[in-house]
């Protein structure tokens, strides 16, 4: 390959990679400034008891927006259960916010032996996630809040377990 062409190809490759990374960052991993609106929320658990999210302030908080009608959400939840088991003692708290009915949530939680709280948010909860970077208002949507209450990471679609581990361990 001629040197001139080689450099052009290299520039082209760099541009394409940058474009791909840029779109990826813009759509999937955009982290808004702080999570105060989220931490100010109080949502019922499946038995109807109000649970303020502020009770977990100071922990590394992973908030997962999900629903039983969302197959990809259900598929990734065993990974979240494992992460809670592994890092819970070190200060990780996972909280699920379901755009769903309490009975369905309860049934599924029992099925997978959910070891973190599942709060009932209804469709309004997905709308809330829109302000937190979920511009498509789709599920699953996960965000990680650091101990200071800043959003450290957001992701639309199932989070790869390795990626989640990376993000969490840096913050713990």
């Amino acid at each position: 390959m001629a040197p001139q062409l080689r450099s052009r190809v290299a520039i082209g490759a760099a541009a394409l990679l940058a474009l791909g990374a840029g779109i990826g960052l813009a759509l999937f991993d955009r982290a808004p400034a702080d999570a105060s609106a989220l931490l100010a929320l109080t949502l019922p658990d499946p038995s109807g008891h109000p649970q303020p999210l502020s009770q977990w302030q100071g922990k590394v908080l992973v908030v997962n927006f999900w629903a039983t009608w969302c197959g990809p959400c259900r598929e990734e939840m065993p990974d979240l259960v494992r992460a809670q088991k592994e890092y819970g003692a070190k200060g990780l708290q996972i909280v699920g916010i379901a755009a769903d009915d309490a009975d369905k949530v309860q049934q599924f939680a029992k099925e997978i032996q959910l070891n973190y709280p599942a709060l009932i948010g209804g469709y309004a909860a997905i709308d809330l996630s829109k302000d937190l970077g979920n511009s498509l208002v789709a599920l699953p949507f996960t965000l990680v809040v650091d101990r200071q209450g800043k959003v450290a990471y957001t992701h639309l679609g199932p989070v790869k377990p390795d990626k989640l581990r990376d993000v969490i361990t840096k913050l713990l």
Partner: protein
Amino acid sequence: MTRPAARVLAIAALLALALPALGQVHPLSPDKAFLFSAKALDAQTVEARFTIADGYYLYRDKIRFAIDPASGALLTPALPAGKIKQDEFFGRVETYRGSVTVNLAVRNFTPGKPLVIHAESQGCADVGICYPPTTQTATVALPAGSIVPSAPEAPKKTWFN
């Protein structure tokens, strides 16, 4: 290999590498992924259609139609059979890909007036995301005049019968 040919190949190879990554991070909004449209077939029938983008699917039992103004009535026939999938949690679930069309019968509606159709749908993308129920609307002008007979058309004669 000539230089232009090498260049074309190099660019094609790079695009092949870059495109799947782009596809994964660019999900459509639900109204584009599940594009709703409607047209009048006659004075009392509307053809409703969802055009579903590649890599997306709709749930059959989440599709609903309603009309505006509510003085009219809408008869929704059974939706066509979808592709059956065994869901671990919900059991038997039917989904559509590509497109789905259904003829809605409109009753007690004044012909010649615009009819607003609301279509609710819910689906997911293969990249691993699902959308909450989305409502889209389409306005249809039902033709004024005589009511088209509802009896089925006689089969058209073709060259082999």
